[in-house]
C-alpha cells in the first residue's frame, strides 16, 4: 500500500514539475505590438486608445490567425514623448530599443511623432527587422529612404497623411475658393516650427505662385504665442480674402477667437489642431463659427458619405464615453492594427520579411477610405474614398462640423463669414 502511495506521489511530482513548462508551451503566445506614443499630447492619447480598441475587437473575435492557430494581440505601450520638442531624439530611440530588445515585441505600431525621431527609428527597426507602421510624423523624406535603400528601410510603413498630401488638400481648398468666390489674396500665419514653416513655403511655391494668388503677408509665431493681433491687423490692412493658419499648438485656437473679435473680413482656412474636435466649440467660446479646418484623415471626423468613418467614430465614442478630438492619427491608429492582422493572416506567419511583403499588398476599405500603400510605403490619399484614403476640410457652423471639401464627400457648400463678400 505504502509503495503504491510513494509511486503515485512520485508520478504526481513529476507531472507537476514537467507539467508547468508543458502547459506554457501549449498556451498560445500573443503577438506583441509595441506602441511608442506621446501621452502628453491628445493625438498620442487617442492614438493609443484606438490601437487598444482595435486589439480588443480582434481578440474578442478570437485573435489573429497565424497559420493554423489563432493568437491574440497584446499591446506593450511606452510613453516615448516624441511629440515634445525638448525631448532628445536619442531618448525616443531608447524607448524603441526597449520595446525591441527587452519587451521583444514583434511589431511596432503608431510611432514616434516628430519626423526626425521617426526617421532615426527607421534605422533601428531595419537593423532588427521589426516592421513599424506609423500613424504620426509627416516628412516625405521617409518614403524617399524606402525607395532609395529598400532592403534596409522596407520595414517602415506610414498610414497617416504626409506633408505632400496636406499641401494638396490645402491647395485644393484654395483652388476651390478661387473658383467659387474669386478669392486671390492670402495672408499666411504659421507656427515657427520646421513642419509649419515648410508647409507655408510649399504653399507659396506650389500653390499660390502657380495659381496667381497674391500673398499679402506672412508671419511666423513662436510656439506658445497667445496674441495674434499683429498678423490679423496686417491681414486686414492688406485686404486678404483668406487667412491661411498652420499651427499645432494648443494656444492657436486664440487666433480664431481674435479673428472674430477683431472683425477681420477674411476667411480662415487652414490647419489649427485645437479646432479639429467637437470640444473646440465650447473651448473657444463659440467664436469659431465660419472657420475652416483641415482634418488629416476622415474617421477622426464622421463623414456621412463614408459609412465606415461614421461607424468607427461612433464605436470610439461608445467605448470611451467621449468623442475623438484629434484631427490627426486616431483613425490611422485603429486601421493599422487591422492592416497588420490581414497581412499576418495572408502571410500565415509573423516572420517580418513575409509580413512586409503582404503589407505592401494591402487593399482595405476602412474608416479612412480605401487603404493602399505606394512604393514608398505611404498610404495614398486622394479625392475619392472608393479609390484612396481621404483627408477633408470642415467648416464650423453653429457648433457643428460640416465637411465642405473634397467635393466627393462634401456635406455642404462653403459659407462666407460676415463682412466678406464673394468677388463673383
Amino acid at each position, binding site marked *: 500500500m505504502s509503495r503504491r502511495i510513494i509511486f503515485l506521489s512520485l508520478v504526481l511530482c513529476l507531472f507537476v514539475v514537467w507539467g508547468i513548462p508543458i502547459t506554457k508551451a501549449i498556451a498560445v503566445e500573443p503577438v506583441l505590438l509595441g506602441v511608442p506614443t506621446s*501621452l*502628453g*499630447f*491628445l493625438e498620442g*492619447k487617442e492614438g493609443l486608445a484606438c490601437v487598444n480598441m482595435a486589439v480588443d475587437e480582434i481578440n474578442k473575435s478570437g485573435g489573429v490567425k497565424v497559420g493554423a492557430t489563432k493568437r491574440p494581440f497584446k499591446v506593450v505601450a511606452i510613453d516615448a514623448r516624441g511629440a515634445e520638442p525638448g525631448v532628445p531624439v536619442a531618448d525616443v530611440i531608447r524607448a524603441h530599443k526597449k520595446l525591441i530588445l527587452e519587451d521583444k515585441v514583434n511589431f511596432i505600431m503608431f510611432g514616434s511623432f516628430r519626423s526626425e525621431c521617426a526617421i532615426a527609428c527607421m534605422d533601428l527597426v531595419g537593423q532588427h527587422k521589426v516592421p513599424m507602421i506609423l500613424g504620426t510624423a509627416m516628412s516625405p523624406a521617409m518614403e524617399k529612404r524606402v525607395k532609395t535603400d529598400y532592403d534596409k528601410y522596407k520595414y517602415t510603413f506610414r498610414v497617416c497623411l504626409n506633408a505632400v498630401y496636406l499641401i494638396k488638400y490645402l491647395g485644393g481648398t484654395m483652388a476651390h475658393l478661387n473658383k467659387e468666390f474669386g478669392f486671390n489674396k492670402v495672408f499666411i500665419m504659421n507656427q*515657427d516650427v520646421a513642419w509649419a514653416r515648410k508647409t507655408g513655403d510649399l504653399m507659396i511655391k506650389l500653390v499660390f505662385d502657380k495659381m496667381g494668388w497674391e500673398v499679402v503677408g506672412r*508671419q*511666423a*509665431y*513662436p510656439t*506658445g*504665442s*497667445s*496674441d495674434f*493681433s*499683429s*498678423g490679423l*491687423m*496686417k491681414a486686414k*490692412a492688406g485686404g486678404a480674402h483668406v487667412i491661411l493658419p498652420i499651427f499645432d499648438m*494648443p*494656444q492657436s*485656437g*486664440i487666433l480664431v*477667437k*481674435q479673428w472674430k*473679435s*477683431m*472683425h477681420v473680413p477674411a476667411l480662415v482656412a487652414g490647419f489649427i*489642431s*485645437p479646432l479639429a474636435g467637437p*470640444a*473646440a466649440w*465650447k*473651448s*473657444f*467660446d463659440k467664436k469659431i463659427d465660419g472657420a475652416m479646418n483641415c482634418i488629416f484623415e476622415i474617421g477622426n471626423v464622421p463623414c456621412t458619405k463614408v459609412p465606415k468613418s461614421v461607424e468607427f467614430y461612433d464605436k470610439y465614442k461608445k467605448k470611451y464615453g467621449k468623442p475623438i*478630438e484629434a484631427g490627426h492619427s486616431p483613425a490611422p491608429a485603429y486601421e493599422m492594427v487591422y492592416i497588420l492582422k490581414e497581412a499576418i493572416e495572408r502571410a500565415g506567419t509573423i516572420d517580418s520579411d513575409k509580413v512586409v511583403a503582404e503589407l505592401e499588398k494591402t487593399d482595405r476599405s476602412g474608416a479612412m477610405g480605401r487603404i493602399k500603400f505606394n512604393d514608398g510605403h505611404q498610404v495614398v490619399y486622394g479625392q475619392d474614398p472608393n479609390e484612396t484614403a481621404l483627408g477633408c476640410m470642415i467648416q464650423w457652423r453653429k457648433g457643428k462640423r460640416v465637411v465642405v471639401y473634397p467635393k466627393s464627400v462634401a456635406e455642404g457648400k462653403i459659407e462666407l463669414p460676415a463682412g466678406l463678400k464673394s468677388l463673383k
Partner: protein
Amino acid sequence: MLLGTLIYGFINSSILALIALGFNLTFGISGVANFAYGAIYIFSGFMTWIFLNSLGLPYVLCVIVSILFSAVLGLLTYYLIILRIKGIAISEVMATFGLGLAIMELFRYFNFVGFRYTLPVFYDGSIAIGDVYVDLQRIFIALIAVGLTLFLYLFTHHTKTGLAFRSIAQDERTALTFGIDSDRIGALSMAFGAGLAAVAAIVILPLGTIAVEGGYEVLINALAVCIVGGLGSTVGILVASVLIGFAQTFTANYLEPHWMMLVSLIAIAIVLVIKPSGLFSHQKELEERI
C-alpha cells in the same frame, strides 16, 4: 497700424505687469525668489477649471476659492519648505523650482493635457478704438493691472500688514526690534505672491488655454521683467513691463513675431551689463559702485 500697435502694446505691458507683480512682491519682502511661481499660476488656472466644470460652482465662487487655495499653497510652501532653508539662496531656488516642477508634472500625470482646459471670459464682446477692435477681456486685463497696482500701493502704505511688509523689506533686523515677526510676514508675502499669481491666471488665461508648459513661460516672463526693473522694486516692475511690452509689440508688428522672444533676453543682457541690479533696484548699488 500705429494705433493698433500702441493699444496692443499697452495690453501686452499690462499682462507682463500682472504676471510679475506677485513674484516681485514675495522677493521684495521675504527675499525668496519663488521659482514655483509659474506652477502656482497654472495650479490656480486648473483649480478654477475643476471647480467650474467638475464641481459646477458659480464662476465668482470658483475664482475666490482658487485664489484662496493658491494663497494657502504659498503659505504652506513657506512654512514647510522655505523656513528650513531660509537665507541659503541656492537651496531656496532649488527647492521652489523642484516644487514647481512637481506641481506641473503632477497635472500632466493626471492627464490635464489638451485644449479643452479653458476659462470663460468675464464678458463677451469687443469694442472699437478708432479702427482697431479689441476684445473686452483684454480691456479688463489692462484695467485690473492698473487697479491691482493701485491696491498694492494703498495696501503697503496704509495698512498695518502692508507697513510691516515694507519694514521687513527695508531692514529685517530693525523690524524685529519693533516686534514684527519676520517669519509671519515672510509667509504672508509668499501667500500674497501666490494669490497675485492666481489673480493673473484668472484674468489672463481666458484669452487662451491652460497648458502645463505655460507655467515655464510665466516664470521666464516674470523673471525677465523683475531683472530688468530691479528685483523688489514695484516702480521698476511697471517701467520694465511697459518697456518690454511695447518693445515686443513693436517687434511683432514691424519686424516678425518670432523675434519677440529675443526682446526680453536682449533687455536682460543689456541691463546686466549696464546696471546688474536692474533699473530701479537699490539692493546691490554699493557693490556695483565698488
